[in-house]
């Protein structure tokens, strides 16, 4: 697992208070991990801080799963 993936996974576990085993690449933030719309906004903001990147509104709409986040962040950092 890449460094980004490990960090993303750790953040998702902390922010959404879910078991690590559930945070798979295909796990959907809302459908699988129980996030609400505000959780997704919060976690996107947390990614921005952690990786020092900017995630625009239309870009964040495409980040639906853990894998989406890892892919997007890896391309930016």
């Amino acid at each position, binding site marked *: 697992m890449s460094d980004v993936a490990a960090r993303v996974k750790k953040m998702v576990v902390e922010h959404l208070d879910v078991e690590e085993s559930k945070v798979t690449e295909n796990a959907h933030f809302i459908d699988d991990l129980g996030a*609400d719309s505000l959780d997704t906004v*919060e976690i996107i903001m947390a990614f921005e801080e952690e990786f020092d990147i900017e995630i625009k509104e239309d870009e964040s709409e495409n980040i639906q799963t853990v894998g989406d986040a890892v892919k997007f962040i890896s391309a930016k950092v």
Partner: protein
Amino acid sequence: MFDLTGKRALVTGATGGLGGAIARQLHAAGAHVALSGTRAEKLEGLAEELGKGAFVTPCDLSDGDAVDNLAAQASEAMGGHVDIFVSNAGLTRDGLLMRMKQEDWDLVQKVNLEAYFRLTKACLRPMMKARWGRIIGITSVVGVTGNPGQANYAASKAGMIGFTKSIAQEVASRNITANCIAPGFIGSPMTDVLTDAQKDAILVKIPAGALGTSDDIAAAALYLSSTEAGYVTGQTLHVNGGMAMI
């Protein structure tokens, strides 16, 4: 009754009568307060009066960049993020609409409404992380009833109410409440100079038979800041002696 020990509050317009009274009551309940306003000297005087736990963070709310820095400035001064944000600053540029200048409209919206938007946005993020927060907008009875000669002011105050109701719904699940307080006629240096006839004309419309005081408003702010008021959100608390029951 209400204990705000360990909470940090930002109060804008703290040089005015209302803002000063709000800051005093929150501070007396144990909160640290960041006092904001344009007149630094007056803020220093209030901070000195309050003593420990009072900090001065001057800001011109018509300056967007300065507004964006205020929340961070206040957090730094108080040694932690803002838990309670009281948007009290406001100004008037009265005149009948037919004579109202564009700049009178723009300035009132900028200071009364836009600064409320900018500051709330900046304050919300750490509140969401902390899962606790209080947003309080000081609006006005005229934001609900309207008032001839105050189209710009009434629009800004009505805007604050709609804004507050929206964010109340957005962040309720995070234990953050957002409410407005709508003062009616409050005694101030401005009303002190009215003639008896003018005062009588106002009082006849107020069932309580008296003007309100700054402390009446501050008490409402203290309540809405409290943990006890955690189930109250999206509301406008009218404090007006029964002048308008809405």
